[in-house]
């Protein structure tokens, strides 16, 4: 097998020859140049293959005919081969990317580039400290010189700062090397260990390690690096961010065994601080490449911390964490830097131009998702395992910093992403074709991201195909995306049916089955409404299927990770669906931020949970044997309640529901929110068997009650029909949460009953409003009115649904109310019952408004010619109506199965006698109630028909002709600001305090970020001062004598 030392030999030899053979023509020198780079990649690929699959031992290469430590030796093991394969591959691809530059520029650039790659290879393989210094300098000098490949004032000054900083760092490194030799008499890593250094000798390893650490750009001694990232040519900067960082990071890994553990802890914390602060400062950044710089610095900090804090865990996990973070950063960062060179726009807000090249836009999205640590990309798995490691080691400061930093990173990356996708300033500018040489590397890395994620899922976690199905759904639909939208719609319907058929036998438990009905059948019916889509709706059905399959996967998930994976897929797909809405940039971002924060909490909660004993089927079934610790329950509950839109963390909900496309809203509102309920039920099941001393669910119950009340009030004050429905969903799910928090039989029966009822009427309402919006093109209710004459079918749906919501007889809501109040009273939660009762009163306000303002009153002039909603909207509405009627007429249809479900966990508290449900407090016969109500309705109706006199119609806005014509006559109508008097009466209580709170959180983080980044004054001298002070501070903190 070819020895890797030939990488060094070939690079040097060809490097020297290049200046000669270049005289024969650039073609020849370019062939030699790319030949060497390709040789490096192939060689390393081969070695990597041998280490991974043939398990060959670590290769030791002695030089100069002597064994180490007499001579310098190199080592190539699995880790080295892994890092070098990807470093060389990035080197080759970046060179391809720079092809046009290399064709024109002086030959010295090619030589420098080869030396740079050689330096990185040598740095990773060498085992000799002084040799390391030499390679470090080769790497640095060639990088310095390459920064001015594009010569401008900015690159020159950035390059100069970089050199000064690098010079200082390498001075310390050299001193460290010499002192190591002085104190131990050896320079070979094989002969050295932490024990080789006495107290006095520690100063030598301190100098050595701090110098490497400075090269890895710790906060705040890293201003020089940011300038380089911002100004230097994208091709070169991708190398600096990826290859240089990887090589120097590996040097740190190699000298780690020399460091005492106190040093390592301090370095680890410094790494985490870097991660947290650079991402916080990134929040304020609007220059694309500088933003990537902040992110790179942060990622290196995270990688270092992971290297240090996973030192004691089992190797396979450690490899996954470090390898995953490394690979993820390498692929996505290089990819994004290359894209930055293609887009050629400094400011993030000008990146909308990327929309004119769809494949590049997809790749951009891919890298952003990967970098943010979303599944299925490598960073996701690394983060999951890392969080687990940190929880097990009880390193909560580090854990919090990792999660908060990641959230900051996600925020700025997705602010960028959503602005690229949605930015509305119409620029008709077309992005010039990037050309093959620039596009190829980006595509290759895009594929690498996908392949590596599938590799991890297939070989590390050995997932079943069903767990990956959501991703395949997206891929499959993208293949047939050119078909008309209706065809894709029917195919999706068939796919959902097939999926339902497949998972049906896997649903062993009635509770799973119940949620299966909500998730799968509910979704299938809602798909019918999407068949109305006229345009091609590219991408829509892929993400829709992804979401629906993830719902189903939640039910059958058998491990924490499978559950979390399905949860994250659900979040991603719903985010992308919401983002499709016309003005959904802000709404979708808000949704993603809150969902991710929730997801992090769920991740932490699962990390606290004890390991599942064996594969005993779905998580929801085995969870009753799992004793969840209190902290786990609390954290998980908050995570789930974010998804169900509980008060305090609900501000994403109205925006997301309202701004999503109108046929997406029913999915988000009627089905997605139930995923949070499902999660809470799961906690409840464990809670029944292992009740902790602190009654968490009592407080969850209160949160539910408050949510119900706030939601109802907020809904009453909305002018926007969809926002009204959104707040109504929040309120209704509040009832569900409150009911299930009782942890009693009747509580759960009523919670599930409410959940089912809500799924049906809220779907129907959202689809009805979708139809109204489709015809009127407005969501403002006061701009509508009198639509009863034009859209009678939609009117009937809305009427029936609001009866079902409000809980007046005879429809299903009445049963729900009867059950829930009975449950509260038997539980003894009287105050909660009172508040909920009040909230029900408030819900009449918004429900009345919905029907009054949209359908009653007089028709607006502009709506004279509109028609009934399209048939695709009517069909699902009436399927849901049929469902509501069925369970209203024959409540046993649902009460009986729910009784059975809850009996698995509690003794039954109700009896079912024929059509009557008997509880401790009384009885309810839904069937009878129905007949009585029908009679009560029918008698006055017939009477009115008989007595119907002459009615005179008054034109609506004739007031305006009396005097001046108001700008917008609709606002003079009672329907506008309908409950102003209540609002006045409530006074300060109606202030959107939660919104204000989160606004100020956002403002504070941005202000803090803005404050801290002032340390980067731009002055090279200040940066040297930072480095010197940093070294002194670390010296003191580590207590080196």
């Amino acid at each position, binding site marked *: 097998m070819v020895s890797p030392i030939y990488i060094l030999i070939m690079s040097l030899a060809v490097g020297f020859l290049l200046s000669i053979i270049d005289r024969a023509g650039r073609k020849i020198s370019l062939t030699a140049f790319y030949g060497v780079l390709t040789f490096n990649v192939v060689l390393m690929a081969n070695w990597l293959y041998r280490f991974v699959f043939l398990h060959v031992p670590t290769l030791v290469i002695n030089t100069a005919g002597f064994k180490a430590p007499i001579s310098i030796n190199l080592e190539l093991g699995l880790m080295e081969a892994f890092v070098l394969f990807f470093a060389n591959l990035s080197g080759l691809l970046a060179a391809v990317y720079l092809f046009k530059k290399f064709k024109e520029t002086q030959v010295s650039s090619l030589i420098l580039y080869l030396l740079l790659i050689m330096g990185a290879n040598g740095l990773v393989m060498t085992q000799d400290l002084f040799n390391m210094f030499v390679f470090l300098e080769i790497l640095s*000098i060639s990088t310095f010189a390459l920064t001015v490949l594009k010569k401008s004032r900015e690159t020159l000054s950035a390059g*100069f700062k970089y050199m000064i900083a690098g010079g*200082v760092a390498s001075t310390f490194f050299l001193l460290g090397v010499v002192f190591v030799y002085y104190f131990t008499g050896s320079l070979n890593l094989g002969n050295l260990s932490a024990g080789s250094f006495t107290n006095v000798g520690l100063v030598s390893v301190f100098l050595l390690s701090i110098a490497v650490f400075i090269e890895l750009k710790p906060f705040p001694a890293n201003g020089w690096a940011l300038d380089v990232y911002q100004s230097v040519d994208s091709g070169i900067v991708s190398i600096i961010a990826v290859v240089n960082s990887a090589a120097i990071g590996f040097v740190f890994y190699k000298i780690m065994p020399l460091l005492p553990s106190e040093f390592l802890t301090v370095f680890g914390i410094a790494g985490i601080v870097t991660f947290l602060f650079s991402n916080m400062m990134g929040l304020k950044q609007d220059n694309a490449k500088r933003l990537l710089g902040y992110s790179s610095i942060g990622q290196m900090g995270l990688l270092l911390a992971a290297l240090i804090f996973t030192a004691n865990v089992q190797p396979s996990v450690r490899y996954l964490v470090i390898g995953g973070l490394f690979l993820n950063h390498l692929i996505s960062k290089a990819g994004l830097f290359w894209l930055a060179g293609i887009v050629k726009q400094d400011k993030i807000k000008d990146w909308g131009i990327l929309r004119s090249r769809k494949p590049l836009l997809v790749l951009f999205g891919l890298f952003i998702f990967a970098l943010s640590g979303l599944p299925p990309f490598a960073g996701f798995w690394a983060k999951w395992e890392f969080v687990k490691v940190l929880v097990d080691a009880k390193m909560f400061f580090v854990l919090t910093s990792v999660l908060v930093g990641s959230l900051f990173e996600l925020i700025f990356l997705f602010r960028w992403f959503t602005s690229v996708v949605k930015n509305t300033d119409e620029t008709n500018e077309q992005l010039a074709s990037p050309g093959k040489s620039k596009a190829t590397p980006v595509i290759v890395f895009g594929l690498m991201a996908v392949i590596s994620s599938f590799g991890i899922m297939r070989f590390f976690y050995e997932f079943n195909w069903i767990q990956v199905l959501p991703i395949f759904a997206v891929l499959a639909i993208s293949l047939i995306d050119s078909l008309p939208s209706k065809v894709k719609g029917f195919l999706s319907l068939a796919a959902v049916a097939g999926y339902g058929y497949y998972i049906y036998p896997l649903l062993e438990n009635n509770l799973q089955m119940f949620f299966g009905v909500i998730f799968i059948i509910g979704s299938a019916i809602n798909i019918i409404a999407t068949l109305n889509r006229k345009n091609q709706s590219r991408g829509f059905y892929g993400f829709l299927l992804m979401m629906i399959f993830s719902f189903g996967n939640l039910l059958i998930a058998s491990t924490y990770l499978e559950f979390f994976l399905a949860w994250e897929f659900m979040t991603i797909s719903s985010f992308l669906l919401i983002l499709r809405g016309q003005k959904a940039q802000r709404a979708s971002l808000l949704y993603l931020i809150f969902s991710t924060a929730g997801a992090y909490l769920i991740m932490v909660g699962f990390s606290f949970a004890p390991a599942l004993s064996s594969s005993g089927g779905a998580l929801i079934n085995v969870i009753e044997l799992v004793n969840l610790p209190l902290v786990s329950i609390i954290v998980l509950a908050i995570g789930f309640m974010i998804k169900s839109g509980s008060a305090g963390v609900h501000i994403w909900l109205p925006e997301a529901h309202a701004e999503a496309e109108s046929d997406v809203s029913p999915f988000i509102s009627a089905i997605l929110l139930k995923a949070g309920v499902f999660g809470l039920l799961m906690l409840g099941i464990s809670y029944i068997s292992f009740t902790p001393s602190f009654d968490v669910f009592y407080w969850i119950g209160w949160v539910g009650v408050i949510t119900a009340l706030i939601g109802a009030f907020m809904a009453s004050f909305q002018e926007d029909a969809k926002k009204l429905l959104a707040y109504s969903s929040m309120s209704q799910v509040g009832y569900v949460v409150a009911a299930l928090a009782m942890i009693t039989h009747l509580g759960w029966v009523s919670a599930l009953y409410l959940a089912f009822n809500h799924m049906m009427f809220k779907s129907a309402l959202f689809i009805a409003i979708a139809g109204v919006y489709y015809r009127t093109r407005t969501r403002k209710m006061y701009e509508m009115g009198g639509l009863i004459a034009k859209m009678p079918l939609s009117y009937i749906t809305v009427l029936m649904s609001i009866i079902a919501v409000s809980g007046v007889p005879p429809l299903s809501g009445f049963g729900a109310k009867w059950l829930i109040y009975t449950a509260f009273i038997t539980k003894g939660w009287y105050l909660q019952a009172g508040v909920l009762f009040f909230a029900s009163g408030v819900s009449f306000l918004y429900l009345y408004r919905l029907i009054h303002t949209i359908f009653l009153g007089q028709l607006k002039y502009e709506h004279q010619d509109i028609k009934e909603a399209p048939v695709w909207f009517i069909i699902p509405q009436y399927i849901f109506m049929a469902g509501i009627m069925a369970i209203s007429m024959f409540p046993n249809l649902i009460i009986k199965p729910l009784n059975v479900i809850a009996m698995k966990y509690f003794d039954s508290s109700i009896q079912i006698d024929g059509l009557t449900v008997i509880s401790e407090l009384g009885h309810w016969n839904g069937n009878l109630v129905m007949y009585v109500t029908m009679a009560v309705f029918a008698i006055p109706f017939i009477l009115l028909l008989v007595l119907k006199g002459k009615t005179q119609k008054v034109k609506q806005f004739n007031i305006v002709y009396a005097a001046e014509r108001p700008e917008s006559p609709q606002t003079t109508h009672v329907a506008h600001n309908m409950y102003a008097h209540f609002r006045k009466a409530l006074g300060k209580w109606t202030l959107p305090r939660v919104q204000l709170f989160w606004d100020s959180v956002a403002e504070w983080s941005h202000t803090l970020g803005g404050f801290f980044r002032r340390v980067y004054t731009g002055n090279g001298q200040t940066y040297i*001062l930072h480095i010197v002070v940093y070294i002194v501070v670390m010296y003191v903190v580590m207590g080196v004598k």
Partner: protein
Amino acid sequence: MISTLILGIALLIIGFYAMLTQKNLIKIVIGFSIADTGTHIIIVSLGYLRGKTAPIIDNAVNAVNAVQEVVDPIPSALVLTAIVIGLAVTAVMLSFIVEMYKKNKSLSIDDYQELKW
């Protein structure tokens, strides 16, 4: 050995002081060079053994018992490499300054801070 070590450290500190206080780019590089020289002197002083000669085997040093007669050769070997590298870095720095001066007609580091935050 101690006196040269102190000299080296003093040069190192003077060099850093110059880098931190001088505004002129060339003076900063001179500061760097002084610090670099200080480092080299430290390296040599660490390998010095009192009363021994240079580690070159010639007429003055008998190859058989060279180990007893010469100073530690490794720091001497290292310092040669370090000097060469220091020279290269200094050269690159100075060439940057030349280009910077051509573009901007200024040698003050304060005039090169448009990239920040």
